[in-house]
């Protein structure tokens, strides 16, 4: 049995808009194990983003229980929550949310600023991360000089800066073209396999979702369905379509030529 990183029970979130109460989450039960790569799918307004915000401690649930590495985060003070967000959670956004006045390296270093890491350690770590996402040599470029795909890679490197227990990605491919979409999801897959990073990704693109190992369907604030993705097979370095051997870096299967 794998170790549980994140666990929720009857997670509820109700927004009050004037006199109207809108139930965004109505009892989400979820368990995420260490090293899992999960996709959350669902139509607009199904509560995907709300769930991700609550999981990322950006928002507090109205009711229910949530533990992160065994700690009940619903009862934590604001001050403890910063520390959780800084050290345990990495966020990836649809719109990248890079700081335009900072270069790639500085953007990646930013989450480390509030930690005990020295300046040189931060520099070393950010260079390693940028290399890992394939942006060696682009460290000093500001976001406006990077393509959309490159910007999202910087954002991924930033999310990994403090070695978080879990990475939460909100529609990370939503603003990208087909080629870059696959690049990014493959990158997330590689990180999951190589680094053992636990990833939860919200998407409404079923093709992208299929690259994960578990797909959860959210509807009216509840998980209604769960499906297996292709990622588990890929983890064994096998093509999920024809079963032949593949490399992690392969964009297409060498034998059946299908996009991995």
């Amino acid at each position: 049995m794998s170790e549980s990183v994140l666990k929720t029970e009857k997670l509820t979130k109700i927004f009050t808009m004037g006199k109207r109460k809108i139930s965004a989450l109505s009892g989400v039960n979820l368990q995420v194990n260490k090293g899992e790569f999960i996709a959350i799918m669902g139509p607009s307004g199904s509560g995907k983003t709300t769930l991700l915000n609550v999981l990322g401690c950006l928002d507090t649930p109205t009711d229910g229980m949530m533990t992160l590495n065994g700690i009940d985060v619903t009862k934590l003070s604001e001050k403890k929550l910063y520390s959780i967000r800084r050290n345990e959670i990495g966020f990836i956004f649809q719109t990248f949310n890079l700081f335009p006045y900072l270069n790639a390296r500085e953007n990646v270093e930013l989450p480390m600023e509030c930690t005990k890491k020295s300046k040189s350690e931060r520099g070393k770590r950010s260079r390693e991360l940028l290399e890992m996402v394939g942006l060696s040599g682009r460290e000093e470029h500001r976001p406006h000089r990077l393509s959309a795909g490159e910007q999202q890679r910087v954002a991924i490197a930033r999310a990994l800066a403090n070695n978080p227990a879990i990475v939460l990605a909100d529609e990370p491919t939503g603003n990208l073209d087909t080629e870059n979409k696959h690049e990014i999801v493959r990158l997330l897959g590689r990180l999951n396999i190589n680094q053992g990073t636990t990833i939860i990704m919200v998407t409404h693109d079923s093709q992208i979702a299929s690259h994960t190992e578990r797909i959860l369907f959210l509807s009216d604030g509840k998980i209604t369905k769960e499906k297996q993705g292709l990622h588990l097979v890929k983890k064994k370095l096998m093509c999920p379509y024809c079963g032949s051997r593949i490399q992690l870096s392969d964009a297409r299967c060498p034998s059946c030529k299908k996009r991995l």
Partner: protein
Amino acid sequence: MKVNHVGALTRAVRNVSRRKMRALLVVIALGFSMAIMISIPAGIIANQEATQSMTENFSNTMSNMQEEINKTATLIECQTSSGRGMSSSTPSDMPFGMPPSGFGQEEVFVNETVVEEIRSIEGVKDVVPFLEKSSNETTSETINGPGGRTFTINRPLYTITGLPLNSSFIDSYSVLPTNITTGRNLREGDSGVVLMSLNLTEYFGVVIGDKVKINGESFTLVGVYDSPNQGRMETRTAYMNLSDAQTVTGQTGNVSRLDVYAENVTSVDGIADIIEAAYSELYVTTYKDRLTNLENMQEMYTQTLTNAESTLDQTQTVATQEIGIAVVATSLIVFFVMLYTVRERTKEIGTFKAIGFSNWNVMSQFMLEGVLMSVMAGIIGIAIGYIAAPIFSSLLLPHINLFGGSSRTRFQPTFGSANPESLTSGAAATLNPQLILLAFGAALLLGAIGSLYPAWRAAKIKPAEAMRYE
């Protein structure tokens, strides 16, 4: 939890410089506000200093005059009406400009036989006769009157003063000018030579040894003395031997003034009475008259000072209000600009929080930006103030009229060497290091105060809501 402040500062600098035009406009607006904030105290300081220096000048003048009166206690001045206002004992210390002789008055002379008659009065030690007469040459001059009005007047170019160059007089009494700048003073036996005031030699364009024409007669310039400014109308004088003066003025055997020295102070009043009774054409003044004069002057000065001080008080009230407005304006500019910045960057704030920045980290980031902008403005303000402090303070502060009612006298009194025009507010306003330091402190403080609420708002933004904000 420790923030890397260098990183935060770098971010603040880059953020402010990201929108260059906006930053420039804001900084200039703030800069002007700060320039006003420091120019006004500069103006106030300048006014205080001017008033103080006026007070010092006057008390110096007063004590000099007092000393002079004490020294010349035995002197009885006897002047024909033409000589009034030109007494030899006071001109150099006379703080109030008086019309020079010959201006609007008929010149009157007495025969020098009176010298011997007065000398024979009991108790008289010495009598020194003078002949003072206006030159034939005249000049047209424009003088500044009260309330900015100007007057054009015709007056004699200079005064010819003749006195017996007798070494016993020259050595015992101060009958000749003392502050010789070039050449030498007159001495016994001099004839055909002249001692001139500096302004007169400048007018003629002559130097020591040059020949100069006085009423058509040629004289050699042997010495130049500097006469202190006696107000708006400078006194120009040519000193010479009495008989030379009598010749060139056509007043052979005549004198216009007698300095009578008593044996002792107690006999002064008696002698003065005798002279006054015997010679109606002579106007007699003793140390008592001179003391009364001094007292009047003192009173007039006190009145002036009271006026100046009350205006200064009024100026300070206005200044306090104006500084208050500038302070509020500066804080408000920072406030609104930062509030706008926070609204504009809501999503960025959300990102900051999502990657683990605390409320305090976010708040200090925005406060730092506000303070940075305000400090930049402070530097600009100091630069503007450095150049424009006099303009700002003269525009914004009421002008001090040190002389109260302007129609009081036709000739505006002048204290010492201070020119009344230079005593308008802020004319001499300059920034001193303390003011510059103060401006810097104010910039820091107002930047912090102005950005406090916007930064607090930024810190309080809920990250989940901020992420939805586009």
